[in-house]
């Protein structure tokens, strides 16, 4: 219905590889990439041209038959007409690739490389940590926090048993 009308409009390329005159200066060759192209895209369901440009004799006769009543077309002929106009069906063009495996592999590789770089940095670049990380300092810090009753309801000091001077079980 709509498809045949659109196809008959752009079925034959208006300018294939012929040349066009430009303002008396001479002729400019029209390159292939400047002409309407066929491509399979989900968002562009009806491309500008049909896929098969040079029809064989069988296909030409089929196109003639298409101009008549479509009820006379068999299923194979309908599929053949489809394949003249389109390269891949929607199911074919939308199917996934196995690219995700390469992507995951690349991710792991680069994460691993980054890990090696981080290890090297820890060993050769960074200086020592501040004294506040030593055990004695940390013990005094915890004792002071308990003395100050930090978060006595649900948090830090709530877990300390002040009677028995130990952590609650």
């Amino acid at each position, binding site marked *: 219905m709509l498809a045949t009308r659109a196809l008959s409009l752009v079925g034959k390329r208006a300018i294939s590889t012929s040349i066009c005159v430009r303002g008396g200066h001479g002729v400019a060759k029209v390159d292939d990439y400047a002409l309407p192209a066929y491509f399979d895209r989900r968002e562009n369901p009806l491309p500008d041209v049909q896929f098969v440009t040079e029809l064989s004799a069988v296909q030409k006769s089929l196109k003639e038959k298409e101009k008549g009543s479509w009820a006379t077309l068999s299923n194979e002929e309908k599929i053949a007409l489809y394949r003249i106009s389109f390269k891949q069906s929607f199911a074919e063009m939308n199917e996934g690739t196995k690219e995700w495996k390469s992507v995951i592999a690349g991710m792991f590789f680069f994460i691993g490389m980054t890990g090696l770089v981080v290890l090297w940095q820890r060993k050769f670049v960074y200086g020592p940590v501040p004294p506040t990380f030593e055990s004695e300092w940390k013990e005094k810090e915890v004792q002071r926090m308990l003395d100050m*009753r930090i978060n006595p309801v649900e948090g830090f000091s709530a877990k300390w048993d002040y009677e028995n001077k130990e952590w609650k079980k």
Partner: protein
Amino acid sequence: MSLAKPAMRGLLGKRLRFHLPIAFALSVVAAAAFKYGVTEPRKQAYADFYKQYDATKEFNNMREAGIFESVRPTGK
């Protein structure tokens, strides 16, 4: 070849009629779970803590531990 014609209209409406009640129900469940899993126990914990709270005793304990600068521990 004779496939049924696919649904062409009402797709958004169908999706909303399916998903919105579920989304609403899940949101209510999430809110109820947070209320009765987090906020109510927290309110109860605070109530219990302050029921037995002796401010003066706690102050004196903290003073003896030596964390204040305005009051020194008793005895030197």
